[in-house]
């Protein structure tokens, strides 16, 4: 679940300690288009960072079954396995809440 700490062994191992993102981290990052980096929304959508894992899981399962009506979230929930939903729930629950900002317009 958590990014594994692994050792970057390019030239003469061990050189660098790098956090290699795993399956769930990479999958979770694809939610960023609507929910911000690591679930810290820049506005208009729920902040997922720091959300209680069981609450997240319930919402996603309800989107999946249709118990909670939605426009686009059903499309995403239905495409994920239960294990992935559990993994995402844990991932987002562990993300610190940070204010997200919009990039500045050039001066």
């Amino acid at each position, binding site marked *: 679940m958590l*990014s594994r700490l*692994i*050792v*970057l*062994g*390019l*030239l*003469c*191992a*061990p*050189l*660098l*300690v*790098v*956090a*290699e*993102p*795993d*399956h769930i*981290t*990479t*999958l979770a*990052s*694809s*939610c*960023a*288009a*609507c*929910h*911000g*980096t690591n679930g810290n*929304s*820049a*506005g*208009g*959508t729920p902040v997922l960072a720091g959300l209680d894992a069981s609450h997240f899981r319930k919402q996603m399962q309800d989107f*999946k079954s249709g118990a909670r009506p939605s*426009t*686009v979230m*059903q*499309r*995403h*929930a*239905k*495409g*994920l396995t239960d294990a*992935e939903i559990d993994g995402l729930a844990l991932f987002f629950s562990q993300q610190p809440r940070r204010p*997200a*900002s*919009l*990039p*500045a*317009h*050039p*001066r």
Partner: protein
Amino acid sequence: MNLNRRDFMRFSASAAALTLLPLSGCARALRTQASPRVVVIGGGYAGATAAKYLRMWSAGAVEVIVIEPNPSFISCPLSNLVLGGSKTLADLTFGYDGLQQHGIQRVQDTVTAVDPLARKLQLTRGELRYDKLVIAPGVDFIYDSLPMLDSAEASQQVPHAWKAGPQTVLLQQQLAAMPDGGVFVMSVPKAPYRCPPGPYERVCQVASYFSQHKPKAKIIVLDANPEITSKKALFTKVWAEMYAGMIDYRPNSQLTEVDVAAREVKTEFETVSADVLNVIPPQRAGKVAQLVGAANVDKRWCEVDFLSYASKVVPDTYIVGDSVSAALPKSAHMATSQARVCASAILATLAGQQPDPQPVFANTCYSFVNARMAMHVAHVYRYDQHKKIMLPAEGGGVSAQPSEQEGQYAYSWAQNIWSDVLT
């Protein structure tokens, strides 16, 4: 940070931001070694995302340099709304300063040559070495069948407006100057092209502008495809109900000739005259992808390994975004999803590990039908271990109808993707 010529020289010697492990027996030798360097060509949706996540996920252990000729980022998503009148180009233009906070170095230049065996690339101002190369140049236009459009003058008379920027403003100005009762003609190239629903969203935006300001104006869509390529039922309904009598859609209408000065086009069947003419040209992988020999599919698109986005033909080279050959929509969300899988795989490879064997990601594309209402197409895509490609998972699809609620979501999508890519 912008780099000057002297910085290029210093790059190879610098060993900045290393997390050295002093335990290693060869620690002394290591101290003089630079961290692995990834050079990213193109600071658009795919390139900027790859750069940010490479830095974020490696906690700064990998040196990342982005090469981008433009001084700022201009978003294609929402650029059709400039034609509709509800957005300005300034609303869609952002600085690159946010990348600096991640320790990404930005070089404002164009890559003119790549030597993949020597892992070296040529800029107009110098030379750069890399360990891994990410190519994210977006699309290049193909003018082989319409050579009369291939000049700066022609693009002033007949804009493509398919790379957001001055072209978008030009098309908007031409529409504003068009008399009421005039005819806007738009040509759609054969798929695959950047943003499948984009041309039809553009028709909605121009129709929305005409309904308010030039109610007698007409729109003729000459589509090289046999039918609307995305959200067909939704667009058909919107055109019939919201813009009744304004839009004349003609399928199987590939352009064979353009009279630039007269703004007149020919298809196999007919000649059509326009007051404002917008030809969206056929597309292929960005020039630099062709240059390096990565565009090996029909000499147009780049074949990649979908576990890493490594080029199938060029070593140490990864392709992300619109340049990739795939049965996937060429969208900004898709470009960022690919870029993150690629960043993850590059870090795994640098660490001597295998990339995630089963990547999964999402794509959502909104189209605005007027200033406030939008509709989606969304899918989760999952790696198929037998076919070795990304396939849509169960449950994907399109909106039941456009709505203001989805218009709000579409704006949130834009704000969040800009925040994710550029801060």
